[in-house]
């Protein structure tokens, strides 16, 4: 079944934030961001901007009636800078003008005098200087000190992953409209409507019940609008609060790129120990997370790095420590995978390093160490593993032996081009790792004409959650989808929502919808019993008629509902779902934080042009553990999209900050995401059907984040191809592996002049 939104999408009729018809007297906002990354504000001069025709007012922190604070986990992030600035682009003032053009022009005529302070962009430097956002955290299993003595082979190294710009095609934005009695209606392109509402209430010092946050859909989120949509909505609301006028701000792409945080870059140390049978006995990792200038979600991202530090492998002795390092970059934030990919990259690097030193293929080590049922993760949970099933199925259906032979033959026959293969197994835990966030609510109304409306806390951002919610309701009522309407995500209808994140949105909200619908059906059974005068425990609806078991009755759905209404039966239900079993104790770093895990294996094949240092991907072939998918079209889309987004992070997407903390890759002309020509020639996805029970909605496992990590295979495939050209090439574990890094690895400096000399010699 296709995404229910796709018909309006393809006709250009879907409404996004910037498409909402404007109310009269709407004003336009624009933020003035700090021009430097760190310093003391000496003087802010808004006088010239204030005098510009069409400028209505310019707001600073002095205009904030409540707390100047939007930090979610740690209160360390002012909405508008007061005495100091901590990153380039940090909002200092908010201009409101009659047109967008005037607002943008006014921002340019604001000047600021700042006394510069030292700028830190490197997380290791931040750690050295004691700049940590939270105290370091360590996950351990077994006894690492004893374990090293048992190892036959020990390898150490450094692995680094750069950040990643979300590049949702719809930029951040908000539109706030004053209502009577000091209420504000807020349209926000946010994954977390409640986060917007909660922080807005604190900043404006008004109760949450006066703030209606409404989200129809997002033009992409990927984590970038989980916490980072908040600032723009509150800035608009601040202006609406003072001016009693509607205020809108949609960021220009370059503002968005400069002022918002990205995937956290990491620099990490690893040490891996194996026995003579290639079993990983010990693994130690130290992660230096570049959090940026404020906590934002980084502490939670950091935690997930630790949860996934051993990826899909069982390692009996583990010590993993992570530092949340404060730097002068925009606060980095959630991005599909949420620290998991950063952790997995490091153990994959460690395995690659070991394999290289031992002269074997990394897949030999990978395969030997895959998780089995009952294996313990470093955080105490026991695996219910599909890791081996996925791997072996991939080897089998994708004929890995044949594939390896083909690659070997190609590499023997070609000098200019080399192919590389990699395996990338994944294991990703589903649930918010903050246990309290694992709750959701749904509100289901049946109207007297028999049509049904469903509201949940889920935000549609392309992941197809509305489609899945509609499927849940349609399945429980056994009604056609045309009877079900999924409504906007709205804080007046559904309160205290968790953000749409952690891949868990469909599970949590879907279960709540399921509960609400079941409760309504239960309530309708006595009504049917009265009409039909027979037991109706096995009531279901088919083609608009009530069926009891397999027997059709004359009672229509419409009449059933009308009768229920006339009998004063409650046709609305608000259900609350909180998954059982999930818990985690951070004081001992142990527990059962995940409802379940998602497994899979990807085989990636790349061809590197060794003359030019560029590459194309032949194929990514995946076996993925879907449980039992409830929507193959939506789920396949998530896998394909996730793979390509992960590959982008590993290959061409390069965030460049200079030493002064200024973003150099600040536009689509300098930051490149995959285009239609750069995706693999072939992406194959095999749906592994697994029988184990799980806590997913309809046993259809969460699919949002896990596939991104298949993209990590791209890095190692390219690396293997470079090695095929130049076996002793020193290819650093530093992602992304851009064409620059490829070419420089293919032709190391010390050999370059020699090549020319040798060429002379040959002739």
């Amino acid at each position, binding site marked *: 079944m296709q995404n229910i*939104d796709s018909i309006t999408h393809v006709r250009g009729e879907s409404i996004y934030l910037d498409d909402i018809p404007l109310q009269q007297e709407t004003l336009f906002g624009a933020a003035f961001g700090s021009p430097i990354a760190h310093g003391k504000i000496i003087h802010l001069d808004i006088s010239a901007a204030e005098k510009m025709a069409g400028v209505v007012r310019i707001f600073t922190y002095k205009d904030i009636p409540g707390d100047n604070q939007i930090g979610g986990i740690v209160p360390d992030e002012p909405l508008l800078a007061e005495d100091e600035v901590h990153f380039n682009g940090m909002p200092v003032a908010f201009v409101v003008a009659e047109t967008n053009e005037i607002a943008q022009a006014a921002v340019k005529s604001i000047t600021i005098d700042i006394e510069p302070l030292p700028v830190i962009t490197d997380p290791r430097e931040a750690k050295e200087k004691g700049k940590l956002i939270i105290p370091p955290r360590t996950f351990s299993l077994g006894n690492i000190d004893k374990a090293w003595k048992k190892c036959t082979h020990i390898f150490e190294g450094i692995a680094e992953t750069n950040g990643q710009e979300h590049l949702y095609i719809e930029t951040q934005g908000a539109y706030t409209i004053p209502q009577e009695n000091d209420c504000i209606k807020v349209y926000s392109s946010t994954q977390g409507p409640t986060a917007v509402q909660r922080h807005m209430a604190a900043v404006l010092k008004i109760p949450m019940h006066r703030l209606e946050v409404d989200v129809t*859909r997002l*033009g992409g989120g990927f984590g970038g609008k989980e916490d980072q949509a908040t600032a723009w909505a509150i800035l608009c609301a601040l202006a609406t609060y003072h001016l009693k006028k509607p205020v809108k701000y949609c960021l220009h792409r370059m503002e968005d790129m400069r002022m918002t945080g990205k995937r956290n870059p990491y620099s990490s140390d690893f040490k891996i120990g194996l026995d003579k049978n290639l079993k990983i006995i010990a693994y130690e990792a130290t992660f230096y997370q570049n959090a940026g200038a404020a906590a934002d979600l980084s502490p939670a991202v950091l935690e997930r790095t630790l949860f996934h530090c051993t990826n899909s492998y069982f390692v009996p002795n583990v010590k993993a420590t992570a530092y949340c390092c404060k730097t002068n970059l925009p606060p980095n934030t959630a991005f599909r995978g949420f620290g998991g990919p950063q952790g997995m990259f490091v153990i994959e690097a460690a395995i690659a390093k070991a394999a290289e030193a031992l002269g074997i293929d990394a897949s030999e080590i990978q395969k030997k160490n895959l998780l089995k049922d009952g294996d313990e993760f470093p955080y105490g949970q026991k695996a219910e593993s599909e890791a081996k099933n996925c791997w072996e199925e991939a080897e089998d259906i994708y004929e890995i032996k044949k594939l390896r032979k083909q690659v070997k033959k190609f590499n023997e026959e070609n000098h200019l081009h080399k192919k590389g293969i990699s395996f990338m197994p994944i294991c990703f835990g589903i649930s918010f790792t903050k246990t309290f966030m694992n709750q959701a609510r749904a509100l289901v109304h049946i109207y007297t004409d028999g049509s049904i409306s469903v509201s949940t806390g889920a935000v549609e951002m392309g992941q197809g959650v509305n489609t899945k919610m509609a499927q849940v309701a349609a399945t429980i009522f056994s009604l056609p989808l045309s009877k079900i309407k999924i409504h906007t995500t709205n804080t007046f209808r559904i309160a205290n929502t968790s953000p749409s994140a952690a891949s868990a949105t469909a599970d949590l909200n879907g279960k709540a919808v399921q509960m609400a619908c079941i409760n309504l059906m239960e309530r309708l059974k006595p009504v049917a019993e009265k009409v039909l005068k027979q037991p109706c425990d096995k009531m279901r609806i088919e083609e608009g008629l009530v069926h009891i078991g397999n027997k059709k009755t004359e009672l229509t759905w419409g009449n059933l509902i009308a009768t229920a209404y006339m009998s004063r039966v409650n046709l609305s239900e608000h259900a609350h779902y909180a998954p059982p079993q999930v818990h985690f104790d951070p004081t001992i770093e142990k527990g059962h934080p995940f409802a379940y895990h998602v497994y899979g294996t990807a085989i990636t094949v790349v061809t590197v042009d060794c003359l030019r240092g560029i590459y194309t991907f032949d194929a990514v072939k995946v076996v993925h553990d879907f449980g039992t998918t409830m929507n193959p079209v939506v789920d396949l889309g998530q896998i394909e999209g996730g793979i390509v987004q992960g590959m982008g992070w590993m290959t061409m997407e390069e965030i460049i900050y200079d030493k002064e903390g200024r973003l*150099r890759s600040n*536009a*689509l002309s300098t930051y490149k995401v995959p*285009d239609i*020509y750069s995706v693999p020639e072939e992406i194959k996805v095999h749906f592994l059907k697994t029988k184990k029970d799980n806590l997913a909605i309809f046993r259809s496992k969460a699919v949002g984040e896990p596939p991104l990590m298949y993209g990590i295979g791209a890095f190692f495939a390219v690396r293997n191809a470079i090695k095929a050209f130049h076996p002793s090439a020193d290819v650093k574990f530093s992602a992304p592996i851009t064409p620059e890094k490829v*070419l420089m690895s293919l032709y190391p400096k010390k050999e370059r002049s020699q090549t020319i000399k040798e060429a002379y010699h040959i002739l």
Partner: protein
Amino acid sequence: MIQFILNDKETSTDLPPGELLLDLIRYHKHLMGTKIGCREGDCGACTVLIGETVNSKLRYRSVTSCLTALGNVQGKHVVTVEGLNLEVSGQGTEKLNPVQHAMYKEGATQCGFCTPGFIVSLAGFCLSDSDKSYENAIASIDGNICRCTGYKSIQRAAKNIAELMQQNKGDVIEYVTSNSILPEYFSGIKKRLLELNSKTNGIEKQTADPKKYLGGGTDLYVQQHEKMVHADIDFLFNKIELNGIKKEGNKCILGASVTITDLMESKTIKDAFPDFRKVNKLVSSTPIRNIATIAGNFVNASPIGDLTILFLALNARIVVSNEISKREIPLREFYKGYKQLDKREEEFIEQIWFELPDKDHLFNFEKVSKRTHLDIASVNSALSITMNGKIISEAGLSAGGVGPIPMFLSKTSAFLKDKKISEQLVNEAIEIAQSEISPISDARGSEEYKRLLLSQLIKAHFITLFPKVHLNSLFTNAEH
């Protein structure tokens, strides 16, 4: 006043002619299907089609409306996604045209924000004269970025659309309107454009003292958007005298408003450079190539301009004019320093010409960027060689991204003259080239990388042009 047909309605506006088509569409005509993603032509969310009559045929091309000035659509047909919706009653998928249906069916839309751009580009493919191959269907969406799908579903949709269009053997407009692929009103557009242009005189009235010359706008609107909106603009793009590709004897003459797409579609160019399509694919994207002019690329003076590098190797000459007098300058002498030209403010490029190569001529263009397509090069280079038997009788080597200006490597070119191809020659040429360049480290690569890359691209020129000559050691490293 700018007048044009917007979807199925004649429309006019008093907005300044420098205003962007995108802003008119969204904020004045309230057609919200056209989205804003980047405002620099790099994402394609704002793609629209521009129809005009060329050689008495109705021709549609896709453009990014975020870089298209209203003055450039005077007297034309502008099609947004709304203008592609069939006027049918019905529910659900019955409302979809086959392009929309293919995208729907394959799950090729997730968040949906980029989707209208893809639909418009694919409709442009349906309307175009090009061969209805799968490759061309994909080429039509090479300027559209999708962050959700990973493109595989979009590729599947494009394949279905190509197959549908392959069934047509006759007139495209007739086919798409009579088969309910696009709305019926398309069949009347040609006539309506004729009427519109007979009323409006076709070309936007020029101000007496234009301060800005505008071609396609793909550079100017990225760099000087605010300035351009209210500037007095002389619109060069639609001037008949500045359009067209002519062959006079051995000379190929390009009007200043010739676009990259015009170049690719030209028979003269195809005959002279059979591989030009390959070059074309490396330059920007379809909607940008559709409006980006060759002269604009020259005047923008980017040290990395693809077309500039190409024409430097070909030793093109440019004719600049101030409307009163003209002068001719070799392109190789046009650049005086970073963004400094041998051109006065009141002058504009009127014509570009170069000698068409003969059968002994070899030409190759190389470009490497972070992303192979729709990206600006880290380094690009072109080599033009004329052979006299086994001897190089003439060589022109150019390189971009390795200095403050697009560089003609004169010493290296002179060195290659009268030489026989050998590994030693290539290596010596590389060493001379290295002495001519002065790359800097920036977002497109470090200085060291750019030096290495140019060496590799010079090797690539020779390996590509002389596949039979044994040049093996050029691409092996010290270990082999």
